[in-house]
């Protein structure tokens, strides 16, 4: 009856105080984003340009991806291409093995989450250390990110404090965020200095120059690539953009949309390995993206630059949390990416949308996320994942709505329902009654009321 999302959301909402904090926190981020957007008179023009650049690049990706790779190779970088997650993981492992790497420090990359890279490497004896503080916290807590930009948002400072007492031997009951951050800094310093390789994701790949561009607030991508002798960068095929003029547009939108900052603290441009280090490696990953281009209804999801603004504003995400979604990316973006990945497996998320369309009104690349969720819902029957009870009721409704006489008879007698007990109406056979109060039906249907009013005139 309920979708996977509604069931999980119910659990989330049981922690009422936390749920309210979660809702308020993300609404706060949304307000900060609005302040930034309103500070730039050209904001809407930038969004339109970003959308157009992405449309252009995605529909000329053969050209730009080849150009990006060729230019990176000219810079002396070794470029690899991965068809899917399995090929990506084995390329990474082969590079690490050939450099005899025992420890890999990495900055945040949703792509490596997508490919389940960490467990793959760990099974093969490589110590993988996440260095973004939020990612490190959830790694130590054996969890997955609950948000793509704020991965540990489901934990409060007491949770983190208790965890650090256990694994970093911090002072008992000192749960002050500044102290905890400092202790994590000390511990990560040691990891940066003892790792043999560093890995980064990529916010952008620049076709014209072959650069990888990485944006962080902590500086962990730079620490990961300034200390160890080997740098591997993983980039999703859709992250490639034409040139620096395009990058300026995305740079201005990204941090403002993501966290309401005018920029991230660091915007780092990697063109080649630093002196004395081994050759830099870039792995370009497809993993479904080139096939999604063929989906006329949904290819524009690929315009996304992973800022997370769609989740911050989403009333369903704010009130249900990242773990209520079955795909590893939550919110409106995750609903759509999950459906592109495997509709049979991830259909349970499409209900997590009120179609308020706030997501697509804030999306800096103008991805029509809400419209697409509506379209996915229309396709559920073809995937065999439509709700059976709702389908049956829709058939019955069609019978009623197709015939004026049946409709009139039904609406005139609806008020009888008022006399039935709530339990009978919400008996579980009616999927829409779940979580809603039964309405009071009027004695006279609307069109009869209107008739009466017109006569009075």
């Amino acid at each position: 009856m309920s979708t996977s999302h509604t069931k999980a959301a119910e659990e989330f909402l049981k922690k009422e105080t936390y749920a309210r904090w979660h809702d308020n926190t993300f609404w706060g981020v949304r307000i900060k984003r609005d302040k930034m957007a309103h500070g730039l008179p050209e904001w809407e023009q930038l969004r339109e340009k970003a959308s157009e650049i992405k449309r252009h690049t995605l529909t000329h990706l053969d050209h730009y991806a080849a150009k990006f790779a060729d230019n990176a190779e000219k810079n002396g970088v070794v470029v690899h291409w991965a068809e899917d997650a399995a090929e990506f993981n084995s390329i990474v492992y082969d590079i690490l093995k050939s450099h005899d790497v025992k420890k890999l420090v990495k900055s945040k990359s949703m792509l490596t989450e997508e490919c389940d890279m960490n467990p793959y490497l760990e099974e093969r004896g490589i110590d993988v250390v996440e260095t973004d503080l939020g990612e490190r916290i959830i790694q130590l807590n054996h969890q997955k990110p609950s948000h793509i930009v704020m991965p540990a948002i489901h934990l409060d400072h007491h949770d983190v404090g208790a965890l650090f007492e256990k694994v970093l031997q911090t002072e008992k009951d000192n749960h002050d965020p500044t102290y905890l951050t400092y202790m994590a800094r000390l511990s990560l310093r040691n990891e940066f200095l003892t790792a043999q390789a560093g890995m980064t994701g990529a916010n952008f790949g620049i076709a014209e120059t072959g650069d990888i561009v990485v944006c962080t607030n902590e500086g962990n991508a730079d620490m990961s690539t300034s200390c160890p002798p080997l740098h591997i960068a993983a980039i999703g095929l859709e992250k490639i953009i034409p040139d620096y003029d395009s990058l300026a547009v995305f740079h201005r939108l990204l941090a403002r949309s993501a966290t309401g900052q005018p920029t991230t603290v660091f915007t780092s441009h990697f063109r080649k390995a630093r002196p004395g280090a081994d050759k830099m490696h870039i792995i370009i990953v497809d993993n479904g993206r080139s096939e999604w281009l063929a989906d006329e209804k949904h290819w524009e999801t690929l315009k996304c630059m992973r800022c997370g603004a769609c989740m911050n504003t989403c009333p369903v995400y704010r009130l249900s949390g990242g773990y209520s979604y079955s795909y590893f990316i939550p919110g409106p973006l995750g609903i759509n990416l999950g459906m592109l990945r495997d509709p049979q497996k991830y259909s349970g998320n499409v209900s997590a949308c009120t179609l308020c369309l706030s997501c697509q009104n804030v999306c800096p690349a103008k991805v029509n996320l809400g419209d697409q969720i509506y379209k996915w819902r229309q396709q559920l029957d073809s995937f065999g994942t439509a709700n059976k009870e709702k389908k049956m009721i829709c058939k019955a409704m069609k019978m009623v709505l197709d015939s004026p006489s049946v409709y009139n008879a039904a609406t005139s007698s609806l008020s009888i329902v008022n006399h039935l007990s709530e339990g009978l109406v919400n008996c579980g056979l009616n999927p829409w009654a779940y979580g809603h109060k039964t309405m009071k039906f009027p004695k006279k249907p609307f069109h009869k009321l209107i008739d009466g009013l017109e006569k009075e005139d």
Partner: protein
Amino acid sequence: MSRESILERCRRNVKEQYPMPVLDDIKALEYDDPWGSFLEMSRSMGCNVLEYGEGESLDDVIRKAYPDAVDICSNVEGVTIANMNPDTLLNPSALNGVDVGVVQGVFGVAENGCVWVPQTMKNKAVCFISENLVILVPKGQAVSNMHQAYKKIAFNDYGYGAFISGPSKTADIAQVLVMGAQAARSVTIVVTE
């Protein structure tokens, strides 16, 4: 080869091609005084801003900013109080615990407080691993926005550069803002002539 099959699918699966938009018509925010606005924005991003006082040398200004610093790392000409040089260290890990790194910035960006810092040293770790970072910015060198900034940046043979705006920070624990996550805990912009 995966390259060919991926590129072939990118060709085959596109239904309709879209043109590249014109970007020169973006009506980007411009400041009357980009330099003044850059300094103001730098402060609001958490930087200290220092100018030379009467008769002061660069060493004096750095010392004024960090009076207790013991280890100072720099290869910038005129920084004679530096006791470490990022060009001569064999291993970046030797920089761990350095109190102050001093690096040369090229220009600032008014809209977000970014400074363009291309790599001009063998060990770029000095820009990140130092507990405190001093970025020298020549007086008056600022643009209004990132469109102008990206037209202006240049790379040298090191092939690396970063826009840096303020100290390293995080809000990953309960959304409380903390300065000094993994990189420098404080940043001082020193205005040079």
